[in-house]
């Protein structure tokens, strides 16, 4: 067979000068620029393109657009696989490698088409019954086989090697759909003065006009409209772009395919996901032709009439030579005439008894045979149709054919309008659903509103475009649209009647749902559309039942003896067509998945053996590899060094807030549970904030820099929340307080020097500063400069040792860090990481994130005395509610492991000795560490107050590792209860 033997020598919108090479299932084929994969396959006589989802039935090309349920292929090139792509929307590209799906070992000979024999097993409700009934166990056994047999294309398990971009766009008016209505709307809106984005999923503008002959008046109209829009400055033409979802705030999700004619350069995006924000939207999304339901209507060689006309006139492919056109409306006759004109032998089988005489006359002129009151009831043969059975006034007869074109009428494309909850409404006069009432900024135009004649659609688009622009305040005078009359006659709806053939009659081709399945669903009581859909999986395929929806409704309505509106309409949800996850992610993958925050000393950590840990967005040193073999080794060594000499810790991640204003002290008094008004200038204080409900919110240290100025630190994790909360209170609750709060977190590098030798190290590092205890007492502040940058030294301790927090202008952070290590080297100053930091505070009994977990109160944490008898601070009243005082309320205790060689684990559940370890227990271990001081594991825990007597035992159960450990309840302060080391 010669290549392109079904291609006509003339006509079409393909470029015969630009051949395009591609392969399908390993076969090298040639198409032309302007082809889709589907049109190129048809031109080459390839009719068998895939196998169906459940029954592995042979399938061909059914449509010429995104509604394609059958011809789904996988593109597989150079280590990448994109499954389930409709061949009908794939713009043919040089080197395209396409594969058919769901077949083994080959497309023509598929072992599992025997699945047809298992059909009863795979019928509607199969999944429901199997999961819920007594056959649940059987499912376990069969699942593997069934999953392997039923399915679509296989996804790739490797990383997606393609690039994707995300972009943001803005316009006044978005027009979705570039058919006659959309083009006319774009022209009108632009003339009115609006910025217009015209979105078209195809690589050509024109919509249904592309199905008209390329030398027709329609083609001339299209050329003129396109030229006009291309030269119109406020119009952005977005071809190859699908509007897949409409979101709140008039945000439209778009995916643009790259032009296969321009090969991608390295790093260029294959698809671009655009969030388009507009002020008004015109939906000109067109309509989708419906199939007819008869036996074996899914066979290759059965095709929508409009698709056959598109293949003929747009792609110059004559898909059949002996064609039967089954229909009940006038539109399909136009396809029949064009096909006959191109040389095919055509028979029309119209279900109507008396089609319009004008059509019959034209049929006679073109030699098209017409059989009225006749319908197709069956087709024969597996891989391509050979015969069709027609049922007419004289009974059944068979007719030879190689193509059966069908048209069950048209369904307006109401998917996008449904996305924001506009319910489709049934219109009896057109026999289809149109969108219900729109919001003021939304407009519909053309066949998606049930306006099927081109003349009217152009008028309607003009009206909608003008109105949409006017909604944006753009009302310049708009010249009348240029007219186009294709002489279409009204599409009269006809009611689908149940199949008369014997074989399976498909409603949803992609999901293999038959009329039999719908009958079964009806028999078993799943009559509502939403139940029908779930029970049969109708419309759940990748094309969301674009062709099947109406036929299914009609079938169910017939079974229920109800009208279609009584039967209901399903809800469509985004995406309109499948979207690659990669496109939504754009470049935010791998390393760029989320931002990374680095401290000013980050490079030093990296260069000096730090094992880093992600803490929220921050990268922090976890431990330093030179401290030990692994984290457990290292943190204990780092702890010991802090307790015996001194350690240096990067604490730049702390939240830092500058609080200023005449009422700053009053403000702090209200937001902290403990008082700040009397804090002297130059002194720091540890403070705890509560939420309004009385639960502890965050803790930190605040220093009074001046009468009306404070420097607040927050925990790393809560930095953003605290600032936002302070702003909230100032903006909404206390606008009378003259206070401003400003984040200065990134302005300061911060480091802590902790340990008995810390003062000596400071003296060495800052020879010009007086850091004696007289000049810098515990909780004192020293302000100065270092290398021309602001310097603040606070004498604070988190570890329980004498310690200093040093803040310096961020750009000098790394320099000062190095300087401290240099000066402290002879005194054994070594850096330590967050694991040692956590261990040091546990040993000292300080609470942190694991204890301040959004469930604990001041009293729970043993901090009740901080508030004392104060009143009027945030959370005061509700912290005192009776439930928080219950005797079994879980309170902070210390635990020490009393079993030799065993350890405590954070998250362990606490039980009393002898108690059955079941349920939530009496409490939980929150933080643990090995204590070098004590020589065993110690931990902090929250334990029911009525059983938490010091000295008694509990059992810590850790089911994840099947561990049970005995522990003794002790004071949470394991080290230096008198706090003498602070001054050591």
């Amino acid at each position: 067979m010669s290549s392109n033997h079904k291609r006509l020598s003339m006509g079409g919108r393909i470029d015969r000068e630009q051949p395009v090479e591609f392969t399908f299932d390993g076969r090298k084929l040639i198409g032309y620029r302007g082809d889709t994969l589907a049109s190129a396959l048809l031109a080459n006589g390839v009719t068998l393109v895939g196998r169906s989802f459940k029954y592995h039935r042979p399938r061909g090309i059914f449509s010429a657009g995104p509604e394609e349920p059958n011809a789904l292929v996988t593109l597989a090139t150079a280590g990448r696989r994109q499954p389930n792509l409709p061949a009908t929307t794939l713009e043919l590209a040089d080197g395209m490698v396409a594969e058919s799906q769901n077949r083994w070992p080959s497309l023509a000979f598929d072992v599992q088409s025997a699945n047809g024999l298992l059909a009863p097993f795979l019928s509607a409700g199969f999944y429901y019954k199997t999961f819920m009934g007594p056959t649940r166990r059987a499912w376990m056994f069969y699942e593997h086989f069934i999953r392997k047999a039923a399915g679509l294309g296989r996804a790739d398990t490797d990383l997606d090697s393609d690039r994707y971009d995300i972009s943001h766009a803005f316009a006044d008016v978005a027009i979705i759909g570039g058919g006659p209505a959309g083009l006319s709307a774009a022209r009108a809106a632009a003339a009115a003065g609006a910025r217009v984005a015209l979105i078209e999923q195809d690589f050509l503008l024109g919509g249904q006009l592309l199905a008209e002959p390329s030398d027709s008046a329609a083609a001339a109209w299209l050329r003129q409209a396109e030229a006009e829009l291309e030269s119109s400055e406020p119009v952005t033409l977005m071809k190859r772009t699908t509007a897949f979802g409409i979101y709140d705030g008039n945000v439209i999700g778009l995916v643009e395919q790259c032009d296969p004619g321009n090969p991608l350069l390295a790093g260029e995006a294959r698809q671009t996901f655009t969030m388009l924000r507009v002020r008004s939207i015109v939906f000109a999304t067109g309509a989708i032709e419906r199939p007819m339901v008869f036996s074996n209507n899914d066979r290759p060689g059965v095709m929508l009439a409009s698709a056959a006309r598109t293949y003929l006139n747009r792609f110059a492919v004559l898909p059949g030579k002996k064609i039967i056109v089954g229909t009940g409306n006038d539109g399909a006759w136009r396809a029949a005439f064009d096909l006959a004109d191109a040389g095919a032998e055509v028979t029309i089988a119209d279900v109507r008894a008396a089609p319009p005489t004008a059509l019959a006359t034209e049929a006679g002129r073109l030699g098209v045979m017409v059989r009225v009151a006749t319908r197709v009831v069956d087709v024969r043969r597996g891989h391509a149709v050979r015969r069709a059975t027609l049922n007419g006034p004289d009974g059944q007869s068979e007719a030879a054919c190689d193509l059966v074109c069908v048209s069950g009428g048209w369904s307006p494309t109401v998917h996008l309008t449904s996305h924001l909850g506009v319910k489709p409404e049934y219109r009896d006069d057109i026999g289809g659903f149109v969108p219900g009432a729109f919001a003021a900024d939304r407009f519909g135009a053309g066949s998606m509103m049930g306006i099927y004649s081109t003349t009217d659609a152009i008028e309607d688009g003009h009206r909608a475009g003008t109105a949409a622009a006017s909604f944006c305040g753009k009302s310049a005078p708009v010249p009348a649209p240029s007219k186009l009359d294709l002489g279409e006659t009204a599409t009269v709806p006809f009611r689908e009647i149940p199949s008369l053939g014997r074989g399976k009659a498909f409603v949803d081709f992609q999901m293999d749902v038959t009329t039999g399945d719908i009958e079964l669903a009806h028999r078993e009581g799943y009559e509502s559309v939403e139940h029908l859909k779930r029970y049969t999986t109708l419309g759940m395929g990748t094309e969301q039942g674009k062709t099947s929806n109406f036929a299914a409704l009609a079938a169910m309505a017939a079974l229920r003896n109800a009208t279609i509106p009584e039967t209901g309409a399903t809800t469509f949800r985004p995406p309109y067509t499948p979207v690659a996850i990669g496109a939504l992610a754009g470049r935010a993958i791998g390393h760029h998945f989320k931002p990374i925050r680095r401290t000013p000393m980050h490079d030093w950590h990296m260069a000096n053996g730090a094992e880093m840990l992600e803490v929220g967005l921050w990268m922090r040193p976890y431990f330093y590899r030179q401290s030990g073999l692994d984290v457990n080794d290292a943190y204990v060594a780092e702890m010991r060094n802090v307790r015996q000499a001194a350690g240096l810790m990067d604490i730049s991640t702390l939240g830092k807030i500058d609080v200023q204003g005449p009422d700053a002290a009053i403000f702090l008094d209200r937001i902290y549970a403990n008082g700040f008004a009397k804090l002297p200038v130059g002194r720091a204080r540890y403070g705890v904030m509560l939420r309004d409900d009385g639960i502890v919110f965050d803790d930190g240290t605040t220093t009074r820099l001046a009468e009306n100025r404070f420097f607040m630190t927050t925990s790393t994790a809560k930095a953003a929340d605290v600032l936002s909360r302070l702003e909230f209170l100032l903006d909404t609750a206390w606008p009378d307080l003259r206070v401003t709060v400003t984040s200065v977190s990134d302005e300061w590098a911060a480091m802590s020097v902790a340990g008995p030798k810390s003062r000596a190290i400071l003296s060495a590092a800052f020879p010009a500063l007086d850091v004696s205890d007289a000049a810098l007492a515990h909780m004192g502040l020293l302000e100065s400069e270092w290398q021309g940058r602001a310097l603040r030294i606070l004498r604070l301790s988190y570890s329980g040792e004498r310690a200093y927090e040093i803040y310096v202008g961020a750009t000098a952070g790394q320099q000062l860090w190095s300087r401290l290590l240099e000066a402290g080297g002879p005194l054994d100053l070594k850096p330590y990481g967050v694991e040692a930091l956590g261990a040091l505070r546990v040993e000292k009994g300080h609470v942190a994130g694991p204890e301040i977990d959004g469930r604990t109160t001041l009293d729970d944490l043993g901090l009740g005395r901080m508030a004392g008898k104060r009143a009027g601070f945030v959370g005061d009243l509700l912290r005192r509610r009776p439930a928080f005082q219950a005797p079994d309320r879980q309170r902070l205790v210390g635990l020490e492991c009393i079993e030799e060689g065993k350890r405590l684990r954070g998250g362990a559940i606490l039980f009393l000795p002898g108690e059955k370890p079941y349920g939530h227990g009496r409490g939980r271990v929150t933080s643990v560490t090995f204590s070098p001081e004590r020589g065993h594991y110690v931990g902090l825990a929250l334990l029911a107050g009525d059983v938490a007597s010091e000295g008694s035992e509990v059992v810590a159960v850790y089911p994840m590792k099947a561990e049970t450990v005995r522990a003794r309840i002790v004071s949470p302060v394991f080290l230096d209860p008198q706090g003498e080391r602070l001054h050591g």
Partner: protein
Amino acid sequence: MLRIECPCCGLRDHDEFRYGGDASVTRPAHDDPDPEAWYRYVYVRANPAGLHREFWQHVIGCRQWLVVERDTRNHAIASVELARQLSARKSPARKPPA
């Protein structure tokens, strides 16, 4: 995506904002000693199907707290005001604290 017309910065996507809860409840004075008043403020919500006043903060922007009137049925935003202006209007005569 919601788009909120910030009085300072103009129309912006909701991911520049932080949601701050119901703005129709009245916060008791900071020293209000009535636990019931605090209980109602913290826990009692009307949850209307329709217009709802709520706090949003323009965190990636001017950082102002806003009061947004949003229809919970269709996310249409009826008004956006600076919370500070509204709260100042509510208690205009309050004496500055000593």
